[in-house]
């Protein structure tokens, strides 16, 4: 195993900031809006990336800190900003996210919000974990915990509902998760549902932020649920609910591939106390059928995977399952335990991949050295693969150089089947 994973610094990082993760979570709640306490660029860069990925209007406000605010403090800007936002959009919940600049100048967002919320009839949620040190995974986690902390109340009775925290998944993935869960038992709530807000029909009411839907309502009842299913590394919300309210924490891998989807479905069945459900058996069989068919095309091929750590981990297992060798693995950001988990998965299949984090530069060199046959990951890897003439399958976030990838799943048996199709086509059936 490599020593590359933990390194001093990287000269070409892929490190989406914590604000992106927080915005990602907040956008999954209809009627909620994020506001970034920082320079205008903080919100515009995040918006720009998300707009290109989701192809939807993305609404994240900024408090527009200028030089004088940086010197004299941005409290007035924050107060005026929140008031302006509420006056214009009338949201039900406002997530106030700190940025690196507001952290360095030492803005006290919590106390400002406490004072403000006395006068305003809106949930004001401070999302203020260290902005400098953290990345989008932690940003998502922080946003999730902060919102839950703000909305949930302790109630003794329990319902048989299951909470789902999807993490950095696409709208298509969430639709697929819902379909699978509906097959088992229709008794679940999503604590952030980006499929409702970031994949909307062409109609004007999609721009109205004063409409809330059940997600915000659900958040209030998250504490009385039976269990919380969270995927990958975006699972702090589940841990929070367990610790505070005793809601069972089921943290599993993103359901990509046979094993991971099996685990997801079994966990769901066990929690719902559903004995037998055949509806997904056929899908599983079709995936196995396709995997058998694909063997000659994919076997012994070497793959590189790049992306969000949770998704990457699941894709690596799926790659092993279909008989390809994961060779170079890169997580966008450094997360604890990622390297060991990848090593554990690959060991079962007898592979020893090199693992890097947050370093495109090293990733590129490793890909070049290892004679990779195919790469799976997000659009930031595309220029490298084009240069090295390696076929590339886009998956995860962000994909901005292909049309409509956010709409289709890679989770569940059907999603995995789609991923497999894309891999085989990229390897052998290119035009």
């Amino acid at each position, binding site marked *: 195993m490599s020593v590359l994973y933990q390194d001093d610094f*990287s*000269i*070409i*990082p892929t490190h989406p900031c914590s604000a992106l993760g927080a915005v990602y979570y907040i956008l999954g709640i209809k009627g909620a809006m994020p506001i970034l306490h920082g320079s*205008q660029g903080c919100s515009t860069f995040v918006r720009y990336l998300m707009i290109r990925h989701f192809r939807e209007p993305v609404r994240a406000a900024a408090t527009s800190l200028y030089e004088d605010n940086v010197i004299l403090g941005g409290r007035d800007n924050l107060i005026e900003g929140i008031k302006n936002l509420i006056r214009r959009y009338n949201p039900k919940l406002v997530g106030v996210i700190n940025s690196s*600049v507001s952290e360095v100048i030492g803005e006290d967002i919590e106390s400002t919000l406490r004072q403000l919320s006395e006068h305003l009839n809106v949930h004001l949620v401070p999302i203020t974990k260290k902005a400098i040190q953290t990345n989008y995974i932690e940003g998502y986690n922080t946003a999730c915990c902060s919102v839950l902390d703000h909305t949930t109340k302790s109630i003794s009775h329990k319902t048989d509902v299951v909470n789902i925290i999807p993490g950095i998944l696409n709208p298509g993935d969430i639709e697929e998760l819902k379909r699978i869960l509906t097959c088992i038992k229709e008794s679940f709530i999503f604590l952030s549902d980006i499929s409702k807000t970031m994949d*909307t029909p062409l*109609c004007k*009411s999609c721009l109205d932020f004063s409409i809330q839907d059940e997600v915000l309502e659900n958040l209030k009842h998250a504490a009385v649920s039976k269990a919380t299913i969270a995927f990958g590394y975006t699972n702090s919300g589940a841990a929070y609910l367990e610790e505070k309210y005793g809601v069972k924490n089921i943290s599993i891998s993103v359901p990509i591939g046979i094993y991971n989807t099996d685990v997801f479905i079994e966990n769901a069945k066990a929690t719902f106390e559903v004995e037998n459900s055949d509806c997904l058996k056929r899908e599983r069989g079709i995936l196995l059928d396709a995997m058998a068919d694909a063997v000659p095309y994919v076997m012994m091929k070497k793959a590189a995977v790049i992306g969000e750590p949770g998704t990457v981990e699941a894709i690596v297992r799926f790659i092993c399952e279909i008989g390809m060798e994961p060779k170079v693995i890169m997580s966008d950001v450094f997360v604890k335990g990622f390297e060991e988990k990848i090593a554990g998965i690959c060991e079962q299949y007898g592979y020893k991949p090199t693992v890097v984090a947050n370093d495109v530069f090293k990733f590129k060199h490793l890909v070049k050295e290892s004679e990779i046959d195919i790469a799976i990951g997000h659009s930031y890897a595309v220029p490298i693969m084009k240069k090295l003439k390696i076929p590339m399958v886009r998956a995860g976030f962000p994909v901005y150089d292909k049309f409509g990838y956010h709409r289709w799943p890679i989770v569940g048996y059907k999603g995995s089947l789609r991923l497999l199709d894309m891999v085989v086509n990229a390897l052998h059936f290119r035009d």
Partner: protein
Amino acid sequence: MEQLLGEEISQCKKLKIKRSEKVEIPECERKTAPGVITERSCAFYGARWILAPIEDAVHIVHGMPSCAYYGRTVRKKNYTLFSTDLREKDVIMGGAKKLYETILQAVNHVEAAKAVFVYITCVPGVTGEDLSLVCKKAESEINMPVVLVNCPGFSGVSQAAGQDIAIGVLFKHFIGNSTANESHNSYAEKSVNLLGEFNVQGDLDQIEGLLARLGINVICAFSGKASIDSIARGNKAKLNIVHCRRTGYKLAQAMKDKFNIPFIKLAFIGLNETADSLRKLSEYFDISRERVEALISEEMDKAKKEAAQYLEILNGKKAAVFFGASRMGSVTKALKEMGMEVVMVGSQFGCSEDYKEAACQANEGAVIIDDASEKELEALLMATEPDILLGGMKEKYMAHKLGIPFMVFPQEFSAFAGFSGFVNMAREAAGLISAPVWKMVKNRYRSNSIDKGVREKVRIAVASKSGIEVDQHFGKAEQFMIFDVSGDERELIEIRKASAVEDSCEAVKNSLQCRLDLIQDCNVIVCVKAGKCVHDKMQSDNKRLIEAQGDVISVLKMLSETAD
């Protein structure tokens, strides 16, 4: 249009309505209000906008790694961008050493690197570490210039600040530093620089092609086609052509002062504009009139012929324009040339000359707005009801949800500059406007107004100071916007100022009375709040009083929906 948002919105500084008597310019380069979804960006973004295309330089972001992550993409193109990947301890203990190491490492990975740009972003901008010594040290180590681009996101009011900073860096450190042989004289006679041209989808090739046919060569295009060497040779040009005023004008002025190079503002968007530009150039360089006219008439005829079928579709259609900055003037001209009406012109950070140019071209009653936020754009689009909106990626999907076709700038498919660029632009606009999908969108703003004139007209008075939002109490209202509404049709009749009658009112009670008198012909009054006696009075007069907040148009829409 001039009726909808009012022609006397004296309080709203950034929004003006075009009237024939005099062209009013919105107050620009102001701060953005906090809490809006701004279409502007930060200084770092602006600096990247200018410097990213310089490929034989090493670009290093000194700051948070995420700034490098986002800053890699400029005008939808990906560039290599290094970062010092600052962590918490570097913020506390100082990141100078890391910067030094990064410079030494990064230089090895860019072949033919001739210079290093170090972007200073927010966090080191706040901590204020002195990095010039590190740059000096690195400079002597790697033997090429290492320059600081001091563009923390909070400087200035928009990305324009960063553009100025980047241009300043180029001017101070590179232009005129050519070490190449001075006798090398191939660009002696007719050579120019293009300032503020970014070569989107081959725009520059179009312009260069036209200039080449007149025997004019381009030394350096700032910065669509700029290398460290060509920038250094920039001072040898005989003339500077300012293509984008925002990014080019200051540099042109500075080069005039230092190198004595004259400059002219030209544009190569639109047929007439391109032809005019070529004529001006040939005059300057003493190129024979026949040669230019021959070129112009050949290209012009060809373009007109090709564009004819598209212009037929575009004729009389309404367009709205919302850009970064100065293209809005030339694009507005081109749209007019296509036979379209321009009902709204706006930009994120234009200067007053930009607005003047655009305002002259726009139609009577057009809205001219600086730094519109997303919500304001939405309101303005609803009010102006254009058939197409031209703007940046960030506004695209918002326009779509409103049922308005959208044309993206920087464009994605073909060059828009020069004669053939005009055809491309007309083709794209015509295709977008006439797409069948827009006929299938049910709730498009105008599809509801089927039974025109059948419904009864209702006269509504709205207490609004800004002209955009319902923002005044009845008793203190300074002005009322008077609308005639029938169904979904709204027409702003006039704006009535309370001050006009207030002088004659003595007591407070009378001031209420005189307001009631002022709007006595209205059946409905909309204001933020009103006192009990006003409520009573309205009831006794069998009129409606509605207390509401929000933007005027939404409130009126809501009213007409609930009226049925």
